[in-house]
């Protein structure tokens, strides 16, 4: 199934979040007016970025060793090339994207060299007011740390203010409360929380209890279920 859209409404943080969480392998194609970039993902992390004159060129190579051969690079060059091309990719704010899952084969010795969590946090520090409202739209929200938050946070290379905010996330404090205690402005806090959510450091607090606004009995619920089934 598709993972397609435009960068104007679905930014790189949002895209990387999906690819990382599901540890996807495949190729993300980004097209703007001037260039076509192919971003190669292994286990949800970026291993290489390739500039191609035509998009279909990307799909001529099903093995990553072929890509390296065509690009005239060795395994040892991957980190240098990636670091050089990442700013070009991340500077693109408008254009189309589409992710093709699978398709490319990697040998075991190809390892991700830049953790995507680090890129997510870097990008989150530049989010606009409109963008942060997409995820952190309510000051009453409560977040908790995820099961493996420590290892993700380590990969994400957090700043001191981000570490301070992370320490305040306990599944009890609302966004509003954290803002008061951390004594930081709303936009900064929203950016940090957006990044934490996308990187997988925090999640919405799971609800143990839910509110049902009617005195429903099991018998009545069974009747409703039977009625719906019979429609």
């Amino acid at each position, binding site marked *: *199934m*598709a*993972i*397609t*859209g435009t960068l104007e*409404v*679905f930014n790189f943080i*949002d895209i990387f*979040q*999906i690819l990382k*969480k*599901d540890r996807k392998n495949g190729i993300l194609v980004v097209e703007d007016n001037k260039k076509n970039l192919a971003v190669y993902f292994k286990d949800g992390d970026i291993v290489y970025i390739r500039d191609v004159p035509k998009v279909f060129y990307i799909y001529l190579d099903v093995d990553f060793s072929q890509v390296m051969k065509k690009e005239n690079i060795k395994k040892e060059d991957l980190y240098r090339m990636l670091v050089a091309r990442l700013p070009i990719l991340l500077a693109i704010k408008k254009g189309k994207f589409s992710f093709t899952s699978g398709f490319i084969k990697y040998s075991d010795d190809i390892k991700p060299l830049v953790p995507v969590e680090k890129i997510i946090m870097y990008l989150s520090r530049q989010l606009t007011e409109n963008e942060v*409202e*997409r*995820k952190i*739209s*309510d000051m*009453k*929200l409560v977040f908790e740390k995820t099961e493996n938050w420590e290892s993700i946070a380590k990969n994400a290379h957090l700043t001191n203010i981000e570490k301070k905010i992370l320490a305040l996330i306990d599944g009890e404090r609302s966004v509003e409360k954290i803002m008061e205690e951390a004594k930081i402005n709303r936009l900064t806090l929203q950016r940090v929380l957006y990044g934490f*959510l996308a990187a997988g450091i925090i*999640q*919405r607090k*799971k*609800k143990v*209890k*839910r*509110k*049902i*606004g*009617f005195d*429903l*009995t*099991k018998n*009545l*619920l069974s*009747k*409703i*279920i039977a*009625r*719906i*089934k019979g*429609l």
Partner: protein
Amino acid sequence: MGEKGKNQIKIVVAGPYAAGKTQFINTVSEIQTVQTEAKTTKSEEKSVKNHTTVAMDFGRITIDDNHVLYLFGTPGQERFDFMWDILGKGMVGLVVLVDSTDPSTFHEARKIINYFESRYPAPFVVGCNKQDLKGAWDPQDIRIALDLNEDIKVLPLVALSKESVKNILLELLEEIAKFI
């Protein structure tokens, strides 16, 4: 609005603009869905559809002599979000719809979920509508995009299909059963 003497049970169907809320209700309602529509005014909205819900839609399913289930559809546009508060009070469950082919609607759906989860945390499920169309995102990817944990059901949906809509409602009722 209700039939005299009958207890009214309320399920809210929320979601972004043009996600298919009115169609969802129409598909299973035993009455012609009562609609409160107006002509769309913004040019980007006009390009999607000509009319939109401004107050609410509602459909009805009679359960027995004493109970009736109402499906209330909320307006999809953010400028009518005052209706979310009115409709959220007293609901037994919530269905949030997204247009699986349009990732811009995921942001709006997340805002709706944030709103209801902070104020009226009733059991809810997400219906990923338009799964029959080309370019539809996988419900599992939509779950991640909406920042939802595995404990929330994110389900495929084709709102034109009665069986598909019934499945969403039954999954919601299963969730509700966990909290009775």
